[in-house]
């Protein structure tokens, strides 16, 4: 059985399949993301307009999909992500612009990012995924539920390829874990195994 490719980003570390590939010079979230952007070796001007959550999810997906072949039928590629605080960072940014009625300045460029599925939208645009897409908000990564969803979509023949994972960005912490699945390997998708891969990367990052 093939190894399930997975990418983990947290605490200024980037792991691919449990191997550390980029240790950050900078511990500040957005600055570390710049290093990951350079590592990913891409030129994508839309990236710079994104909010931190979308940037994080986007980069994790970028590294994950680098050497992966997706279905040629765009509508057979999809994505499911979990997230904990939804879009709290941009929500607060928007809230600040409306706190004072005398000085009211809501920004459309910020407001559009106040939905967690805009992050999956950005990933879909980048990779041309036109299939199933869903964002669930949960207080932690729940491998069992994500795998339940993925298997269910494959059983119903809704996709050939699905990315799953958990991407979250809060005031003082951030974490991204994404993994790659294919319908032909659906029987090997095991929630326990995915949970182990996640926990292993997480443990390495906190070492």
């Amino acid at each position: 059985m093939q190894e399930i490719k997975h990418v983990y980003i947290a605490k200024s570390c980037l792991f691919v399949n449990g191997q550390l590939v980029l240790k950050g010079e900078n511990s500040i979230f957005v600055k570390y993301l710049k290093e990951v952007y350079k590592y990913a070796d891409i030129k994508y001007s839309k990236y710079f307009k994104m909010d931190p959550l979308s940037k994080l999810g986007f980069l994790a997906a970028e590294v994950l999909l680098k050497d992966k072949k997706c279905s040629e039928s765009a509508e057979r590629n999809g994505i499911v992500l979990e997230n904990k605080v939804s879009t709290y960072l941009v929500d607060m940014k928007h809230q600040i612009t409306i706190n004072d009625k005398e000085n009211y300045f809501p920004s459309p460029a910020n407001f559009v990012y106040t939905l967690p599925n805009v992050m999956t939208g950005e990933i879909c645009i980048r990779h041309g995924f036109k299939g199933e897409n869903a964002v669930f908000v949960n207080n932690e990564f729940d491998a069992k539920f994500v795998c339940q969803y993925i298997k269910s979509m494959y059983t119903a023949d809704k996709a050939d390829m699905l990315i799953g994972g958990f991407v979250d960005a809060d005031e003082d912490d951030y974490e991204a874990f994404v993994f790659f699945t294919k319908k032909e390997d659906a029987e090997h998708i095991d929630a326990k195994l995915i949970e182990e891969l996640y926990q292993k990367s997480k443990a390495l990052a906190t070492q």
Partner: protein
Amino acid sequence: MNKKTYIVGDSMISSLGFGTEENMKALYAGKSGVQRIEDIQLYPEPFMGARLDDKQLNRCFSSLLMMSKLPQEFEFTRFEKMAIISMSGVYREQAFPTDKNTLFILSTTKGNIDLLQEELMEKWGKERSMLYKAAEVIAQFWGFENKARVLSNACISGVEALHIASKFIKQGVYENVIIVGADMLTEFVVSGFMSFQSLSANVCKPFDEGRDGLNLGEAAGCIFLSSNEKYLKNNKDILEVLGGGSSNDANHISGPSRTGDGQFFAISSAMKEAGVTSDDIDHVSAHGTATPYNDEMESKALNLAGLQEKPVNSLKAYFGHTIGAAGVIESIVAIHNLIDQKILKSLGFEKHGVSMPLHISQETKDYSMKNILKTASGFGGCNAAVIISKSEKV
């Protein structure tokens, strides 16, 4: 092993009333819940929106407190009250199970977002403003054994929840799914849409030549789905979710696709699963936000799907756009249109205003139907579709 996804019960609260019956009565009478709102708590200037009656909300909720599995002194937010009231309407008709075979899905975009206001944040704290926390509180009220799930996929959340739930039920992953769609009219959302300049200064006009934007609204709706036929004993007709699908335009995060292919993929995925063709679809309950680009995109998608001759309506001029709740309450209306064999006129429509031909429903009347297609589209380029179907009880 393919089980059926039966629609056991439903209930909703909106600007048009509390309970499905009140809402259907107002819809058949052609009433709109969209009004001029002058309230600086919501926006510094007057605007058009659809709002719930707060007095009725609180009165209704206090009569439910005895059902709560939480301590009596536990305080609920306005959002949580809305969701719980909509669930109580279902529970009264047919008590839903809360055991391990039952999944509770909350479809919402912003949940307790009003708690971000400084004075509310002081009282409730940051965690309560989180979507998962609101879902947890609602689940605790009823005593659900499984962890509550929040689906937050912009304006398609409600329709997509029906689609995902029906896969879980058909495949026996869960026997029952309780879906709640809820979102509030808040300053947060109104100011955001105002900054986009996408709100109309009048009651919105979906698919009309003169459409110039949407109206925001608030609502909560609950649908009880199950594969277990024992719950159908009180129902006169058999209603099911036959199929569903979701898709992404992969085109733009805040603008709909120019071609409609994304929405078309969701529709064809739903039709394929349901085993129906465009000929079998009797009516389309569209998303129809009344923004220029959305309605244009939908006209293209419906033509791609060969549905241009089927009567189409949008319910946005009745309820306003209730975001995460829209897909649920509009599906509830579709369910009752099937039961009543009545089709609703697309309120606000006068003159054809999209580039592709569509048959916009212009009269509320008796209409024989078996399959209704419900669609939705949202920010992030997402689309969803479900087919809701009625058959005779044997």
